[in-house]
């Protein structure tokens, strides 16, 4: 077991390395010239050339990649083109806000998703199930920022309960967290419900019944647990989605955070900041999915039997 964990850990490190490379390659195809942008349109060609040397963008791609990689290993993500601030420090200042948003939203989403999914199965075909399904369908068909706008219209403009801007303190964070949480809960809810409905028709349920196991136990211990396999996969994938939507939510609510910093940096072609931000998001994603992969073995014994030949 410990060996398996270590193996997965090594693989995750490899993924982070791959991500660094991929992000670097994609971003350094960016056609815009940062030096020209920083120096301004009317700067003389010499000034622009000097700046290019200063920024290091005059070097070959391979040489830039090597020095970037060397920096990343030492925890140095480069220097911002625009503010001349170390990227790591700039992002670290924004990190708590984004982490708080994403983590709270995911907690809301998981709680809502599993509760509504189980309720839907319990009241399958009746009004509660149908209401949950209709509302879910509607919500997940909305762009997150439109859902946020509607919530702003109702709770800020009409009722005046919550501020429009989502910065600082608990109260301004309510709308961003709720927007993201509600939106993310829908796929989880659907997956729990579908998985459980499929599970109830599986032969193993008949087997368990034939053995005289109680319905409640079959439902919550076996069927729910089996449905959670695909739900956990989805949750892992959705961490990326929640980080992505955090970018949009932060922009909508003018909230401090990595996402908003990234969007600003993309506008300014501030490549080191963009690179650092995406790298940070990737690391977060890899860590979460490492945990998801390890939890497979706990939730679905079938995958354990197939993947580790030793126990067969």
């Amino acid at each position: 077991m410990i060996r398996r964990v270590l193996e997965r850990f090594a693989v995750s490190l490899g993924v982070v390395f791959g991500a660094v490379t991929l992000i670097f390659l994609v971003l350094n195809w960016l056609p815009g010239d940062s030096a020209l942008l920083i120096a301004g349109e009317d700067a003389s060609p010499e000034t622009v050339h000097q700046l290019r040397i200063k920024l290091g963008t005059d070097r070959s791609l391979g040489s830039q990649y090597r020095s970037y990689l060397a920096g990343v290993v030492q925890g140095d993500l480069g220097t911002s083109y625009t503010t001349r601030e170390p990227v790591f420090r700039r992002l670290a200042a924004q990190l708590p806000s984004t982490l708080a948003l994403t983590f709270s939203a995911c907690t809301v989403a998981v709680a809502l998703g599993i509760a509504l999914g189980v309720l839907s199965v319990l009241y399958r075909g009746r009004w509660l199930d149908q209401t949950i399904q209709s509302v879910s369908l509607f919500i997940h068909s909305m762009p997150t920022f439109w859902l946020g706008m509607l919530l702003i219209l109702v709770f800020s403009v009409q009722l005046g309960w919550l501020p429009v801007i989502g910065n600082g303190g608990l109260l301004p964070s309510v709308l961003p967290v709720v927007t993201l949480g509600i939106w993310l809960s829908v796929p989880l809810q659907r997956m729990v419900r579908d998985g459980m409905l499929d599970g109830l028709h599986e032969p193993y349920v008949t087997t368990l019944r034939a053995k005289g196991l109680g319905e409640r136990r079959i439902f919550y211990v076996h069927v729910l647990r089996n449905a959670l396999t695909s739900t956990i996969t989805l949750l892992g994938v959705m961490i990326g989605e929640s980080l992505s939507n955090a970018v949009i939510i932060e922009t909508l609510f003018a909230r401090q955070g990595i996402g908003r910093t990234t969007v600003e940096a993309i506008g300014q072609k501030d490549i080191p900041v963009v690179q650092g931000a995406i790298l940070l998001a990737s690391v977060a994603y890899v860590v979460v999915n490492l945990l998801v992969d390890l939890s497979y073995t706990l939730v679905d014994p079938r995958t354990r039997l197939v993947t580790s030949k030793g126990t067969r």
Partner: protein
Amino acid sequence: MKSAVGKFSSVAARAVPDVLFDAPARPPSVSLPPARRFSSAPGAPQNRPESALSSGWSSRVRVGDLLVLASLLMLLFVGICAAFPGAIAPYLPTDMQTEAILGRPNAAHWFGTDQFGRDVFSLVVYGARQSVLIGIFAVLISCSVGVAIGLTAGYAGGWLDTVLMRFIDVWLSIPNILLAIALSTVLGPSLTNTIFAISITTIPRYARVLRGQALSVRGRPFIEASRSAGASHFSILRRHILPHCSAQILVLATLGVGTSILIGSGLSFLGLGVNDERPDWGFLLTQGRGYLTVAWWTVTFPGLAITSLVVSINLLGDALRRHFDPRSAPR
């Protein structure tokens, strides 16, 4: 076959060891009526009358059919808007009426007017084309590539699985909007590039989920049985694993059309991936955001357009799933 039975009982034994000891003492309840299986939810009355259940189904089927019809009409309407916006829209999207800036919805302007005095209804009609094209083409590309990668990896296992999944892991580890932002900035703002960026970013989700499905299916007894009956790997993938996952693929692809349209609108909202001349629902929302507190109609109607289109697609997808997978019908 013997080993498969062994697997199953060992699963049960690990989860609930006491069952094995209880089992012989109790009479096996083999003569359960079929309805018993469907009303298996705990908390529900155990002997619920059959009629209540079946009437629930039939009314749901009728509502479902109506919803499918409504979605088809909606899709048809959006399709017409996308193909011939001039035939539907009362004004041109460039038509600025300076005397009617930020006007409330009225008879002349059903959805009101925006900050330039443009008719919001006409803008919404002209904006349909972008979303329709993005939804269709992004999913066509990403779903076919993703499913192929996922099923191959999950079924093949071994080094191929490792290589493909490590690649997908790297791909997936970059959050989709961030990757799409980077890609569409690199490629420049055009519809083709937006579609390309969205397809690239949505491939991993198909691959990942389908791989999990294939992995969990391939150990099942019926795969072992067809293998021992001499079926080739390709034939097992195509005739057993793919159909076994078809409901999953359909659900994913359906949600995928919606997701692609939503990512597209997100990119537009952030000011990427649109040409300024072409009206686009996401971009209309960005513009309307500044007038949120004074003119609710500038954000409400474009958002409603996106939502109704995506709702219709999702409803239709559910109907397709019921059609292709009768097992899931009474939901």
